[in-house]
Structure formats: C-alpha cells, structure tokens
C-alpha cells in the first residue's frame, strides 16, 4: 500500500526530475517569444503559437513530438508535406493588391534586387563551413518571407527548421528597426527628398485578372520547382481579382489562413526542443539571417540608386528598401523614412509596388534555387 502511494507520487514528480537545463532555457525562450508577440505586437499571429509550441515541446515526457504525438502529427501532416506554407500563400494572394505594381511595372526590378541578400548569405554560410543545403536554408531567411523559408528549409534542411523559421518571422517583425539605419546611411539628403510622380489610373480589371495567370505560366515554366508556392499565391490573387468566388476568397484570407497559421506556428515551435535547438550553430544561423536581411536592404537601396541615375532622378532610392517580401512593413518603413525628410513626400504607393514585387521576387529566387539544385541532382 505504502509502495503504491510512493509510486503514485513519483509519477507526479517525473516531469520535474526529467527537466533539463536545455528544457528550462527553451521554456524561457518560448516565454520571450510570447512576450514579443503579446506585449510588443511583433508578428503575434506567428510568435504566439511558436512560443507556446516551444514551451509545450520542452515539457519532459509530454510525448508531443514522439511518434503519434499531437504536434508530431501536425508537423508530419503540414510541414513535412509542405502543405501549410502553400495554403498560407493562397491567403496571402487573396490579401495582396498588385495594382500599385501594375501602375508602375519597372518598380518590379526592385523586388529582384531585394533578394540578393539570400545569395550573398548563402555564400557566407558556405564559407563558414555549413553544407550546401544547410546554406541554402540559411540564405532563404533573406527572402523575409516565412512560408517560403519554411518550404525551402523543410525540403533541404528540416533539422534547421526551428532556427530558420524563428529567425525569418522575428526579423520580419523587426524590419522597422533593421532597415532605417541602412537606408539613411546609403542615401544622400537630395535622394531622400526625391518625390515620385503618381501615374494616372492605368490598371484595368482585365489586367488585374490576367496578371496572376500570366505570372503563374511564365515563372512556373522558368522554375517549375517553385510552382506550389507561386501557383498558390497567384490562385489566391486570381480569386480576389476575379470577384466571382468571394466565398472562397474570404475563406482563404480568413478561416484557412487563420487555421493554418495556428497549426504552422505550433509545428514550428515543436521543432525547438532544447537538446536539438541549443547549439552554437543556432546562434550562427540567427546572425546570418539578420545579415541576410541587412544585405537585402543594401542591394535594394543600391539598385534604387541605379534606377534613380538611369531615370535622371525620377526614382527615390529609399523605395528600393521595400523590395523585400515583408509586406506591408517594408513599404511603411519607406513611407515613414521619406516623410522624415520631407513631410509632403508620399512614397507609400510606390513602396507598396516594390513590396509586392518583393513577394514575387522572393518566391522566384527560391524557385530558381530549387530548380537549379534539382538540375545539379541535389533537389
């Protein structure tokens, strides 16, 4: 009898006795992510479930990531199969308005320049001794695009998924802090004050409908491995612009996006198990991810300066910083910076154009990497 009571009580202390220092650190990390999401409003939709997932998976003996465990099932169903990032893209497509980009198509080039940080970081990671596929996963943080980062990482380096996704989403939220100093450093007073003209309304409804179809066909033929991402983004946008499936559009941007965001966040948090996450390489990945976004901003602004030169001062180089995928944060940063130097300078619509170009550019960069690696026999 006494033995039974003793064993019974031991069952209640097992969790405490199995708790490791790694678990405690990761539980605190999870709490820090919750703090950033709840108190600081940094990407709360993702950081809250990721933070809570990190806490759950670090509770010893919970079995959540064991075979058949709840979070393992979410992870296997949505992340390993890449279903979650693709579904998120339908929602993003349904929420994105490409009209500012269509008004001024040349701004799309800034969306390409804003991806160069991905490739430069890839080279740096290789130089630091990471394998090629790990370097690709680290470089893709520079896409500043959560679903794309998760898609590429789950394909090539699933063991880095926790670090890469946390870096991607955290830095996306920190864009308003990361970008301005670089933008100020790389532009002159005169460039900062350049006002960009607003073209007359020139985007027809037909064009808005044909755009996602044309983008899908062209980009997916160039880099077929990116079809799931680009296809879903453009499907979402086509549903929105066609106006004939409003129920599906609303479901995509609300119910589907919300449910998938919750499950995706929990699944990512579940990859942050202490023993696997707390390694020196995680810190390196976080550092390289930050560098990737800084390099994106540098190349975007420098390309903006080139466009400014070629157009004889018609493009404000600050808009180049919006050529990343963090939508609409990067565009807002450009608007704020522009008005800092001239309160009558309204760059928002141009920045929105570059920002949506960055969304297309980040998927295109990832798609090209996937296709080139496939061509090399590595995909």
């Amino acid at each position, binding site marked *: 009898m006494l033995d039974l009571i003793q064993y019974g009580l031991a069952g209640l202390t097992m969790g405490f006795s199995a708790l490791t220092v790694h678990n405690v650190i990761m539980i605190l990390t999870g709490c820090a992510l919750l703090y950033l999401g709840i108190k600081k409003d940094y990407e709360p939709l993702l950081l809250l479930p990721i933070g809570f997932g990190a806490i759950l998976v670090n509770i010893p003996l919970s079995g959540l990531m064991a075979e058949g465990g709840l979070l393992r099932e979410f992870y296997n169903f949505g992340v390993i199969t890449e279903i979650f990032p693709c579904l998120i893209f339908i929602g993003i497509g349904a929420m994105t308005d490409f009209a500012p*980009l*269509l008004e001024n*198509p*040349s701004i*799309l*080039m800034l*969306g*390409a*320049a804003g*991806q*160069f940080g*991905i*490739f*430069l970081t*890839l*080279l740096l990671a*290789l*130089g630091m001794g990471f*394998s*090629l596929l790990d*370097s*690709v996963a680290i470089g893709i943080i520079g896409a500043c695009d959560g679903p794309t980062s998760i898609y590429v990482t789950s394909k090539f380096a699933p063991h880095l998924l926790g670090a890469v996704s946390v870096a991607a989403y955290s830095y996306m939220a920190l864009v308003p802090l990361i970008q301005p100093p670089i933008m100020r450093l790389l532009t002159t007073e005169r460039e900062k004050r350049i006002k960009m003209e607003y073209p007359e*309304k*020139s*985007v*027809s*409804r*037909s*064009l808005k*409908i*044909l*755009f996602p179809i*044309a*983008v899908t066909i*062209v*980009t997916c033929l*160039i*880099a077929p491995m990116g079809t799931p991402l680009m296809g879903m983004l453009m499907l979402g946008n086509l549903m929105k612009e*066609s*106006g004939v499936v409003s129920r599906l559009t609303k479901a995509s941007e609300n119910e589907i996006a919300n449910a998938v965001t919750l499950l995706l966040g929990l699944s990512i948090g579940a990859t942050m198990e202490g023993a696997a996450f707390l390694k020196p390489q995680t810190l390196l990945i976080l550092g390289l991810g930050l560098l990737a976004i800084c390099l994106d901003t540098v190349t975007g602004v420098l390309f903006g300066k080139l466009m400014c030169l070629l157009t004889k001062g018609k493009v404000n180089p600050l808009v180049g910083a919006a050529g990343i995928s963090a939508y609409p944060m990067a565009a807002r940063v450009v608007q704020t910076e522009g008005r800092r130097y001239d309160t009558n300078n309204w760059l928002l619509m141009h920045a929105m154009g570059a920002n949506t*170009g960055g969304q*297309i*550019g980040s998927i*295109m*960069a990832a798609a*090209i*990497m996937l296709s*080139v*690696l496939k061509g*090399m026999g*590595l995909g």
Partner: protein
Amino acid sequence: MDNLTKGLVLTVIGMGGTLLSLWLLTLIIQVLKKFFPYSEAEEKSGKEVV
C-alpha cells in the same frame, strides 16, 4: 565540383535568373497594359474584357 563552386554557380544563376525573370514580367505587364488599357466603362460595368 566542391560545395563553394556549386554555391557560386547557384548564386550567379540565382541572382541573374531572378533579375531576368522579373524583367520579363515587367515586359509582359507593359504588353498586357497595351492590349487591356484602363477604361471607365469597364470599371463601371464591373465586367472584364477578356
């Protein structure tokens, strides 16, 4: 081919490919704008002319 060489190839094709693809898209948008110009009538009717 070592990893660094593969990485360099990936970087060159990746940056060049992204730039060229997006440039191609700007051309396509320009062409589409020519064939499907903005018109008040279409906006009012709410029907696409495709």
